[in-house]
């Protein structure tokens, strides 16, 4: 401002004007394209000269000194750690208490509670409780969905596994709420806390889920307790973030009005900020629940109980049918949890003003009759313009309490009768038998075989073409170049795109990757990540432009994207495996399926966000549809495109490593092997660290590039 020079004949310096004069933008060319071209030439020359040298390739069973050190550390923790106050004392205590807590709930609803041959509460009781809880927090409609989902777990024969997943997920969510909400509140009210914790949350969300596995297994061993901790850590950031956001975004007028009435800080929190942020916080709990579910399934790799186990087992023997059945159960649970928590958050907005429930037709009449016969204290006039009275808080609990009576009856029944306790085998029941586990597995396998045999000429050709023409050359270029060439190339790209800050971070991350001794594998993973991201962006731009420009396209595509987003990443492996068998391409397809929805949505929102005035002006100038897209809409939604690329990269990376389980190889496979082969534990841990470093590196480069080019 101080250096501002007014243009000659500029506006008179009005002393009342607070408007600032813009500084003159000097056209400064960055020559980004030329610089990148230079880097590419350097890269290709080095590749040609020293192909296959200094690649730092490491045989699969080979380990480095660092990996052995990790192994030794693991051995020490397992053998001597028990006597150490920290490992045996603190961590051991935490792990053991969580494990026994999980076991307590398992005996309650999923595994036989000794001396009983069945759990304390049988399936009927569990469903009754679930329906009642759903009714209380989310309303009548969601109960139908919950009932169907819960029954489907039993019908396909995965009742105990489903209950285990539910226990791990909900237990973690409870911990997240108990810890995350207070932390979020603290961050909203204390700038120092916010500044300190935000970078930690950033890091937690950048690092792919897979990286958490090995270190936690080191500290807590493997089992149910570790699964809860893993899930908790992964699901915590959304709750904290959204709580902070919710409290911060309470309108300042309201805060000021409350302040002018002399509220203490505690009163402000309890009576103003929390009630007004409640709905946002419930959205945070929804996000947290979905994250927890996706991690609870991955936790099968550290021997966590639940639906992840049958998926992993089936993937290892490439039994698509069995993996699909368990995968579908996970999807059913995802939909159930998502719809319930979403309905709860939507309801949070109308808390206390809706009538008995959001029901229609006969339900309205029924609720009217019920309302009229309630005692006087249970209802009150809803105010002018509102026809029917509404329930008071006391009245709501009267109804909830009355509805709990059948729940109690169901619990008692489920404890007394075996067929209400153990979910009955449906393989002899008409119709339902088609949905029993083995039957469903068989039909899915048959269908897959039939389908794949009809399309495999196409799928195999596609796979081979992409592998031979794109994947292999690109992977060679990254992985077979000398390691120092790659380091220079990556640093140069970071410097050109983002400036010195991301270059420093890239240097640190590359140093870490080098130190893990897994340079070659990291480059293979990087090549898969980059190719998958490029493909994701291609699809996302096409779909996103269509959605952004056309309401109909949006309305028809968006629900699918929403549905895809609720599915835990694990599940994507199954259809990809069915179509393409185990290969790197399979991992890429799964990664694309996982990342396309989020990227597409971001692009579509960006296109939609282009100012209608600008679009209208371009149309008035006679722009064709193609010109409109390429000259107006895409350039103006550059910020969204860059953001979509960033998110796409992170999603793809997290999925590419999970794809290690279906032939993706490299880092992801090493992580998985670390759990199955004792001597590879250290290498797996190192691979996890390399993945984390790569995630941070890609995120930072993309972010700083976004800041520079996204305007």
């Amino acid at each position: 401002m101080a250096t501002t020079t007014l243009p000659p004949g500029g506006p008179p310096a009005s002393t009342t004007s607070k408007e600032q004069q813009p500084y003159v933008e000097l056209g400064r060319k960055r020559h980004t394209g030329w610089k990148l071209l230079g880097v590419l030439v350097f890269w290709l020359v080095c590749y040609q000269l020293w192909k296959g040298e200094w690649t730092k390739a490491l045989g699969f069973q080979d380990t480095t000194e660092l990996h052995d050190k990790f192994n030794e550390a693991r051995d020490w923790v397992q053998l001597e750690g028990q006597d150490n106050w920290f490992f045996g004392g603190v961590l051991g205590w935490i792990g053991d208490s969580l494990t026994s807590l999980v076991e307590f709930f398992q005996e309650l609803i999923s595994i036989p509670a000794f001396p009983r041959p069945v759990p304390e509460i049988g399936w009927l009781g569990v469903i009754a409780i679930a329906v009642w809880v759903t009714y209380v927090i989310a309303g009548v409609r969601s109960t139908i969905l919950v009932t169907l989902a819960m029954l489907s777990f039993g019908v396909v024969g995965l009742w105990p596994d489903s209950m285990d997943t539910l226990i791990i997920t909900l237990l973690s969510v409870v911990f997240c709420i108990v810890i995350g909400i207070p932390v979020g509140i603290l961050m909203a009210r204390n700038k120092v806390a916010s500044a300190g914790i935000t970078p930690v949350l950033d890091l937690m969300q950048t690092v792919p889920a897979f990286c958490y596995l090995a270190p936690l297994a080191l500290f807590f061993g493997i089992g149910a307790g570790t699964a809860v901790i893993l899930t908790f850590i992964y699901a915590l950031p959304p709750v904290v973030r959204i709580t902070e956001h919710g409290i911060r975004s309470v309108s300042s007028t309201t805060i000021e009005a409350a302040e002018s009435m002399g509220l203490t800080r505690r009163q402000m929190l309890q009576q103003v900020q929390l009630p007004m942020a409640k709905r946002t916080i419930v959205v945070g709990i929804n996000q947290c629940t979905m994250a927890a579910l996706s991690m609870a399934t991955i936790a099968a790799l550290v021997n966590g109980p639940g639906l992840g186990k049958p998926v992993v087992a089936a993937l290892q023997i490439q039994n698509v049918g069995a993996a699909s059945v368990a995968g579908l159960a996970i999807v059913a649970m995802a939909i159930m949890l998502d719809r319930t928590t979403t309905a709860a958050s939507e309801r949070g907005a109308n808390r206390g003003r809706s009538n008995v429930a959001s029901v229609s037709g006969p339900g309205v009449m029924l609720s009217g009759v019920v309302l009229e016969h309630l005692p006087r204290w249970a209802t009150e006039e809803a105010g002018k313009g509102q026809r029917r009275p509404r329930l008071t808080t006391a009245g709501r609990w009267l109804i909830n309490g009355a509805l709990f009576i059948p729940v109690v009856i169901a619990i008692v029944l489920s404890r007394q009768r075996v067929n209400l306790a153990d979910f009955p085998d449906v393989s002899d029941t008409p119709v339902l038998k088609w949905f029993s586990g083995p039957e469903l597995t068989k039909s899915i396998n048959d269908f897959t075989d039939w389908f794949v045999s009809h399309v495999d000429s196409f799928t195999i050709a596609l796979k081979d073409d992409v592998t031979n023409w794109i994947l292999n050359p690109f992977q060679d270029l990254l992985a077979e170049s000398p390691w120092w060439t790659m380091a220079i190339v990556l640093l140069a790209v970071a410097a050109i795109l983002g400036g010195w800050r991301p270059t420093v971070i890239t240097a640190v991350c590359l140093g870490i990757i080098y130190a893990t001794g897994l340079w070659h594998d990291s480059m293979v993973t990087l090549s898969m990540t980059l190719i998958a991201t490029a493909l994701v962006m291609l699809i996302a731009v096409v779909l996103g432009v269509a959605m952004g420009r056309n309401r109909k396209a949006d309305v028809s595509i968006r629900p699918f994207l929403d549905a895809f987003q609720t599915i835990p990443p694990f599940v994507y492996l199954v259809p990809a495996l069915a179509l393409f068998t185990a290969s790197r391409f399979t991992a890429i397809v799964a990664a694309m399926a996982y990342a396309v929805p989020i990227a597409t949505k971001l692009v579509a929102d960006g296109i939609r966000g282009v100012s209608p005035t600008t679009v209208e002006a371009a149309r008035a100038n006679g722009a064709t549809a193609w010109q409109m897209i390429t000259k107006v809409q895409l350039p103006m939604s550059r910020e969204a495109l860059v953001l979509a690329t960033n998110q796409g990269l992170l999603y793809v990376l997290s999925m590419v490593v999970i794809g290690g389980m279906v032939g993706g190889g490299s880092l992801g496979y090493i992580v998985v092997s670390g759990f199955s082969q004792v001597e590879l534990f250290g290498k797996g841990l190192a691979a996890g660290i390399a993945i984390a470093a790569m995630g941070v590196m890609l995120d930072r480069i993309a972010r700083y590039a976004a800041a520079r080019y996204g305007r």
Partner: protein
Amino acid sequence: MTTSTTPPAQPAQPSASAVDRSGETPAVHVEGLWKIFGPRADKIMASEDSQLSRKELQEKTGHVVGVRDVSFDVAPGEVFVVMGLSGSGKSTLVRLLTRLIEPTAGVIELFGEDITAMSERDLLETRRRKVSMVFQHFGLLPHRKVVDNIAFGLEVRGEHKGERRNRAQEMIDLVGLSGYENNFPDQLSGGMQQRVGLARALAANPEIMMFDEPFSALDPLIRRDMQIEVIRLHEEVGKTMVFITHDLAEALKLGDRILIMRDGAVVQMGTPDEVVGAPADDYVRDFVSDVPKSHVLTLKWVMRQPNGQELDGPVLQSDQIVRDAARAVLDHHGPCRVVEGDKLVGVVDDQDILRVVVAEDED
């Protein structure tokens, strides 16, 4: 415009209504009040920089002067209007009075109690019992019913449910919202929401009510209704009111006295007819140029010195509004006497009246 009014013999004499009660403790006493926004406000306050203009200071130090050396008294029962354009510091000023914003320097006393030196506890107590505020965007709690919004202040200070319900119901009836007790704020129109805000402020039974542009967000017709409502409430409950607005017509309609601010400093302070009749500078003159002067000015501002001749016809009081006196003067065809009490202070004829009325059309 410039020729239309003669400056009165004794300018800036406080009008009779509310102010001149010397000896009584003022409801609000403000002296040398400053607010500078920025991390090093105190240092700037102590240095020469505080003498710089707002713009110069911002360029030099990045600090913004919100309120600059403001002093005024408000008498008990008075309606005191603070007006100015957006960014002139009027909203900051009203927030300083209860330390919603901490002042940088100066004295604030409410009924003799020093606000600036108050402990946190006493300050809360003051906000709970002595002063209440009405906001431009209402600041209602969307999760509470109308009645609970109105009773909120009482709840905060720990009154029992029965008491506060009764009090809230009284306020609902007072502001004309009977029947809407159990609605939620978003089911009401903007005007009705502001009535809730008004009732909430009244419920605490404060000594002073502060209004921060309360009707700016409302439609013109609703705004007029609400202004009439405030006048009615003032007559009924007789609270001291500090009223912030950027609308001159509103200021003239409601204010016993008006303080005009610009860039954080006081430009002029006086009764409505003083502001319109003798604007302190071009800024104020610009402000009042559109006002129908005959609706605001009193005869004091248009009369001439009596030249000794014998007069008959009507006798008019000097504080009568020109518009109300016009009929009598025009009917008389000749100079009329203007008196203050029993004393003859001037004469006025149809020329004097027409000068004010016709000049409006020329503007």
